[in-house]
């Protein structure tokens, strides 16, 4: 099912991008957690009062009193949603469609390796990358929180909301992977693989911003991820995570299936 040689090569190929996004996440997470401070909270809240729509659009809602609540407001509305997603878009496209487009897929399929194995290996590379980014963010958040505000952050709660985040990012990655498997042209693969997640994020921002646009939330996967709901243990939030996880599985399997059956004009 997995070709170790291909997996190692593609993970090596993911390294630069992973380091880049890890660096961005490091910067934002450390800055934002260190900003947690009741006085600063007042300042941020005043921003929210001054321009509520804009702050809400990027998921920054006022009134969080705990460190985790603060992190949900200021990290889980934009930074931890968008950066792993962009990673998945770039990598998802690169793992299948780019090889077909550039012709290097010839090397992979003109060998005694089943197409299913090629696709499954590439999927595993994408999933590994997303997992590493979310795991890294988790470690980072916990470490920085422990250093700056010892005892303020419940590890279990952090793991719960980041588990949900992982499900969301895997589902978004599934869209990119499926697009990469369907299209032999990176133009279209990126069009769908980047376009759809980006559109959904914009809809999410719209839905957050205004009551009139709230209906937009029914057209975006981001609605299914509700970190505050997860903390409260609300059933709908947990159901959302379940749907995301199942969706991710279906998308990856569909991608592998499509790639196994498609004509390769290479």
């Amino acid at each position: 099912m997995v070709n170790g040689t291909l997996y190692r090569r593609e993970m090596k190929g993911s390294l630069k991008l992973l380091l880049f996004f890890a660096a961005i996440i490091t910067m934002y997470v450390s800055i934002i957690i260190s900003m947690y401070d009741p006085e600063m909270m007042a300042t941020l809240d005043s921003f929210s009062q001054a321009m509520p729509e804009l702050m809400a659009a990027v998921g920054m809602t006022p009134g969080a009193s705990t460190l985790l609540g603060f992190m949900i407001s200021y990290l889980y509305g934009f930074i931890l949603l968008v950066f792993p997603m962009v990673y998945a878009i770039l990598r998802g496209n690169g793992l299948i469609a780019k090889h077909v487009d550039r012709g290097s897929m010839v090397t992979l399929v003109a060998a005694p390796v089943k197409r299913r194995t090629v696709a499954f290996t590439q999927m595993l590379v994408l999933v590994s990358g997303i997992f590493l980014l979310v795991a890294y963010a988790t470690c980072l958040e916990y470490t920085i929180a422990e250093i700056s505000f010892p005892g303020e952050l419940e590890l279990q709660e952090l793991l719960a909301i980041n588990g949900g985040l992982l499900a969301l990012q895997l589902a978004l990655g599934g869209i990119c992977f499926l697009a990469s498997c369907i299209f032999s042209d990176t133009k279209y693969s990126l069009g769908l693989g980047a376009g759809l997640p980006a559109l959904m994020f914009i809809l999410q921002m719209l839905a957050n911003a205004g009551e009139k646009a709230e209906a937009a939330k029914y057209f975006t996967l981001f609605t299914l991820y509700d970190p505050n709901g997860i903390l409260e243990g609300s059933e709908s939030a947990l159901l959302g995570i379940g749907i995301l996880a199942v969706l991710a599985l279906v998308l990856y399997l569909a991608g592998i299936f499509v790639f196994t059956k498609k004509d390769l004009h290479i």
Partner: protein
Amino acid sequence: MNEIIVENLTRDYGGGKGIFDLSFQVGSGEVFGFLGPNGAGKTTTIRHLMGFIRPKAGKCTIHGLDCWTKSSRIQKNLGYIPGELGFFEDMTGTEFLDFTVKYRGLSGENRRKELLGRFELNPKGKIKKMSKGMKQKLGIVAAFLHDPEILILDEPTSGLDPLMQSRFVQLLGEEKSRGKTILLSSHIFEEVERTCTRIGIIRQGRLVAVDSVEALRERHLRTYQVTLPTEESARAFARDFGGSCQGRQVTVSARQSLEDIFMHYYGGGENG
């Protein structure tokens, strides 16, 4: 036994493009030349054989295995030089060959060193920076690395200089004597003439002739009888033109080169 069998293979891309009801066989240990101009359907046929595309109608098998469903088993014993080389451009040639060896799961001996020496290729540089010729050599080395029984070569000498072309022809000759089955697609007549035992000529997706090199030439043999003024000049004429002489009458025959035969099938018609 036929190693490669193509039966009524059809793939219509519309606008006259594609391959139509194509059938031919390549026997075990045979070198089959697949000759045709650009766009005639050579690469489309090869993609079917490689299991890259699924036949819309008809079928093809290699070593008795279906090319679409059993592709990965066929590939174990198959070497392929694509018409358009696809490497991982970020690798060096050495990294690419290392990758190929491990990816294919080859253990122990392979022909890498010998082949690199034969084609005077130093694979240390980045593939991205290699010339067309160097890339082609790298493609050849990668295809012959695992010493496969069946070789499918899509215009394998493109980009090679004449010296390297002749080294490649030499390599094919050796492989032929070692009993390898080879399908060589080309539009270079000399290459096909020097290496192949049988030739299939494809035009607009249809096979217009399949025969041995000799038979193709025979069929296009033209015989002339000329009468000369004196017996003496008849003898001289027969000597110079390799004919046979009977009194003042001399019979000479003209053998067409493969190129002329090729032009015969293509000349006059619209471009394939």
